[in-house]
């Protein structure tokens, strides 16, 4: 029996349908709604009433509890932190919380889908990679798993400045989920359970007490983190056909939205989509432009234990053709947006192919990337080609692309609509302003992307654990990090489309680089308790090496010689006699490897450390200026 009742209607219906002894329980100050089950499961109302009034925190949890044997049949499930949802936010939240020593329960609809990548099989990219580095610097997991499961890695924006340099990894989606699941399952204090949460249990002081599942179990904890992703009242669309689902083939979570609305939260609806997957074996790559990974692989994690190189796979570039555009233009009325049957807003930076073609009429062709989804699966992700067209047109559409003329489709493109809670209802700790101990993170806050989810998950997990043992919550200032910027934007701005992290959202991004994510955040991670002694030692020795090297470059001077000649050549500037290595490094186009080449480098330093030294020296002036601008801004806040 699946009722989707709005709370007020539910109250009325229940009052009408159930015999009068139930009614006194509604007079109880409790805000809980237990109607669905009371309609279908008979039980001793007498007991129900007395147990509630005597022991407010205890509630009937199972049918067994209402038998003559009293409480013996009911096992009270009590935790410090409950995380609802096992996606990228949920995993980080649960891991952070458990690692801080909180007894943590991770509730997910399907244990086999933990840390699933339902869309793009990739981690990182501009701004997103900064988030990953930052989460790693704070002791999170996403960077390590991405480093472990990559299929291909590339550094983007290589020539555009150190602050926007971005690492992107194509990942093996199955391996990724398996690796994360392993970590989750092997973490002490962390318990996993399948359950669909339908209610938040709220105490008399507007504090969270736990959650209630669809099958009637109550789980208790003083902190609850909701990371429902696209599952809350999720509905997927292919053409005009729709069905309730969080992802294709996975049932949505029903009832929680109504409960949250009943608790006074404002909810709204967003839409996103994912393109079709095609069978790699049916694609002719011979005419397509290959896109290889970097020869020298970079890493998300600051932990060298995870820097294990593996064989890389290739991505391919194809383009839309006249036929593609014609097919779409002829069938616009068949798409949800232009046919007018889906209202929820999709993200601007992830437009469907029909949006691109309608809005940019003059553009004759659009790039489409073909990305492998794993080493052992035939699926190819067709990036840039999400569509709302019905499935019967999708294969024809795919076959208009060069190389895909004879392709077979494995999964159709679909769009998903879901409920989210505009995040101005949270404070910057990600705790909701209404209910103490209730945290939101990930897509429920209106974001999109695994990295954004992981970043919020970490903050929510740390704060949920801290809240459960009465410690003050932490907040990352906007200016401290991309994570801080992300959360500040979420809680202060009125966002009405899925929020994706972009470098242009950060006002002082020169200070928030990937290379200094650890020196910005690892001390905080240490203080919070997520950075163990080994990592801390690594961090400290790295910083010491960088400082020593900067000192060395200041003091070592060179006169003339090959180095000076090459520097003159590279920079087009004369090199004075007895010039310090520091001033040489400050010259345009002179990189640390020039010092290495002429024997002035320092072999004790890793490539990443040399890069840190180079950036600190080369861009010192700009960095100082941004810092002083930041201070000026702070004076006014």
């Amino acid at each position: 029996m699946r009722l989707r009742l709005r709370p007020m209607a539910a109250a009325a219906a229940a009052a009408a349908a159930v015999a009068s002894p139930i009614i006194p329980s509604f007079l109880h100050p409790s805000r809980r709604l237990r109607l669905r089950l009371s309609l279908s499961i008979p039980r001793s109302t007498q007991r129900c009433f007395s147990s509630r009034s005597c022991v407010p925190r205890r509630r009937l949890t199972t049918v067994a509890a209402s038998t003559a044997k009293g409480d013996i049949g009911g096992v009270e499930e009590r935790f410090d932190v409950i995380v609802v949802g096992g996606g990228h936010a949920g995993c980080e939240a649960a891991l952070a919380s458990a690692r801080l020593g909180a007894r943590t329960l991770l509730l997910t609809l399907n244990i086999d889908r933990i840390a699933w990548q339902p869309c793009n099989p990739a981690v990182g990219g501009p701004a997103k990679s900064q988030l990953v580095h930052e989460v790693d610097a704070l002791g999170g997991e996403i960077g390590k798993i991405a480093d472990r499961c990559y299929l291909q890695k590339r550094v983007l924006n290589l020539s555009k400045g150190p602050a926007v340099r971005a690492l992107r990894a194509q990942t093996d989606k199955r391996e990724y989920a398996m690796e994360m699941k392993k970590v989750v399952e092997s973490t002490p204090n962390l318990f996993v359970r399948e359950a669909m949460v339908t209610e938040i249990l709220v105490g008399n002081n507007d504090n969270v007490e736990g959650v209630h599942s669809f099958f009637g179990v109550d789980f208790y904890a003083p902190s609850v983190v909701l990371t429902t992703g696209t599952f809350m009242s999720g509905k997927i669309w292919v053409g005009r056909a729709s069905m309730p689902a969080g992802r294709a083939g996975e049932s949505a979570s029903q009832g929680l939205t109504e409960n949250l609305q009943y608790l006074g939260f404002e909810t709204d609806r967003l839409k996103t989509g994912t393109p079709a997957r095609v069978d790699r074996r049916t694609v002719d790559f011979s005419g397509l432009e290959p896109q290889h990974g970097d020869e020298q692989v970079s890493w998300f994690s600051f932990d060298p234990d995870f820097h294990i190189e593996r064989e890389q796979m290739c991505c391919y570039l194809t383009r839309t053709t006249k036929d593609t555009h014609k097919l779409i233009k002829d069938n616009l009325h068949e798409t949800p947006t232009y046919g007018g049957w889906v209202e929820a807003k999709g993200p601007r930076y992830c437009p469907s192919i029909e949006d691109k073609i309608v809005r940019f009429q003059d553009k004759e062709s659009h790039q489409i990337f073909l990305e492998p989804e794993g080493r052992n699966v035939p699926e190819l992700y067709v990036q840039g080609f999400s569509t709302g067209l019905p499935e019967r047109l999708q294969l024809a559409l795919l076959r208009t692309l060069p190389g895909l003329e004879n392709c077979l489709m494995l999964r159709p493109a679909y769009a998903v609509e879901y409920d989210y809670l505009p995040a101005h209802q949270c404070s910057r700790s990600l705790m909701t302003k209404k209910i103490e101990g209730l945290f939101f993170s990930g897509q429920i806050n209106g974001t999109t992307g695994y990295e954004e989810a992981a970043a919020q998950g970490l903050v929510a997990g740390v704060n949920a654990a801290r809240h459960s043992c009465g410690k003050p919550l932490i907040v990352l200032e906007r200016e401290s990090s991309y994570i801080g910027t992300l959360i500040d934007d979420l809680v202060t701005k009125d966002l009405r489309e899925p929020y994706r992290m972009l470098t242009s959202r950060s006002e002082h991004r020169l200070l928030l680089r990937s290379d200094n994510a650890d020196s910005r955040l690892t001390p905080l991670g240490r203080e919070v308790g997520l950075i163990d002694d080994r990592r801390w030692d690594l961090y400290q020795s790295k910083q010491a090496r960088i400082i020593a090297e900067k000192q060395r470059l200041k003091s070592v001077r060179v006169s003339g010689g090959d180095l000076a000649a090459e520097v003159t050549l590279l920079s087009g500037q004369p090199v004075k006699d007895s010039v310090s290595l520091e001033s040489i490094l400050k010259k345009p186009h002179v990189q640390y490897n020039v010092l290495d080449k002429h024997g002035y480098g320092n072999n004790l330093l890793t490539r990443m450390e040399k890069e840190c030294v180079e950036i600190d020296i080369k861009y010192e002036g700009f960095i100082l200026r941004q810092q002083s601008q930041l201070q000026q801004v702070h004076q006014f806040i």
Partner: protein
Amino acid sequence: MALRALLGLHIHHLLLRRNPKFQKFPNYFNPTSLIPRSRTLISRFSSTVGSGKNLILTKDERVGTSGTVEGLGTIAAIVTSLGGGPAAVGIVRLSGPMAVDVASRVFQPAKRNGEVPWRPRSHFVEYGLALDLEGNVIDEVLAVPMLAPRSYTREDVVELQCHGSDVCLRRVLRACLEAGARLAEPGEFTLRAFLNGRLDLSQAENIERLISAKSVAAADSALAGMQGGFSALVKGLRKQCIELLVEIEARLDFEDELPALDSSMLIDKINLMWHDVQQALDTADYDKLLQSGLQIAIVGRPNVGKSSLLNAWSKSDRAIVTEIAGTTRDVVEAHVTVQGIPVTLLDTAGIRETDDLVEKIGVQRSEAAAMSADVIIMAISASDGWTEDDKKLMEHLQMNQMSTSFATPMILVINKIDCAPSITEELFEINTRIFKKHVCTCAVTGQGIVELEKAVLEVRGLDSIPAGGRRWTVNQRQCEQLLRTREALSRLKSSICEELPSDFWTIDLREAVLALDEISGVDISEEVLSNIFSKFCIGK
């Protein structure tokens, strides 16, 4: 003036906080919905965290917006001048969501006697009585309702035109205050107009300048500023900066989807913008002169006709003129207007060695006047030619200037040209280094005065200002921001030339936009983003 102070006080807050929400002023500050909520929030938060415990990075909530909440409400003030002689008409203005309510408690329309509540038609004048709360008639007034958003503040505004005496105005104001309005802070009407997006900051400032304008040119310049001449330039510059930012930033976030950047196009645009900023800055000088005027000291040895020149220029007999050398003992002032700029002429005692105590003091004063003037006019007599005394005096003036390390522009006036029409040209060849211009005049006939005015404008660099001065100018604050903009653009040019990575270009472009924003007051990030998305086809 008070308005400027008030605006100045709020500027930084506004610039940092002004976001799209802010413009929905009434909703945002709705006291019934917001205050109670934030209260419970604060109390709950403090109970959660517990007192005395320190948060690691900072406290959780940005509390402290409550300060602005008190700004809401309906305000009233006498908006015509007070304290002067009795005027025929004076105005009490009400603005705010309750303006009509308050007005209806004070104003009783003559047509529908006693009918309550008063339902005004916007921009429709009604005649009636002003009553105090006891119902006593305190004045006969005209009510001018201007309902939101078609009003100065974009709120409901009611103006009550009373009789102009202080007593009437104060009684009507008091009745309004008793009826529920609160007394407006100085400049608050304009502040509200700014907050509600009716004016941008530079327009608001120009209103203050218009109110306090002392010359026609100053008023014209303020009007041009209000009508948005300068705002349009700032908006244009800002738009161009944003466009460039969009070009660059789109390529940072979506590298593989866009063609490479055309940096020569970029540099061309930056050069154009730099030029525009420079032009705007040039008006700053003019603005200062419009506000404070120009001081011109007329110096020279005795009896070359300085006082006659002053009289001729000011078309008055301000200074006593005799044949006796040393007639002028003290500094004599006269006021003229040159192309709308108020000019103060200072006639000084003839500078010479003297034993006369009074004349000695006069000479000292002459030198002091010359030192502080904006322009020095040195007069010589055409009949005497360039004498040894003239040379000494010139050297003396030069010495003084060197000690202050500031060169006041000097003009040589050859007076009494009627006595020696064939004044030799070689005279000036020696002196062109010192005197930027020379003009021949005849104080008696007024000959050469027009040329002299022209020369004054020229040496002060004001000749490029179109005649009539009907053009906007920039004030001190705007000038500072324009300088910031110019510096940012200069740095940007050098960043590009030095081939720094393109991310560094955005730093100075943003700086330029921020500086421009402080002139008109808006917010960028979201704008750059939405432009990226509307301009480029992006997304995978």
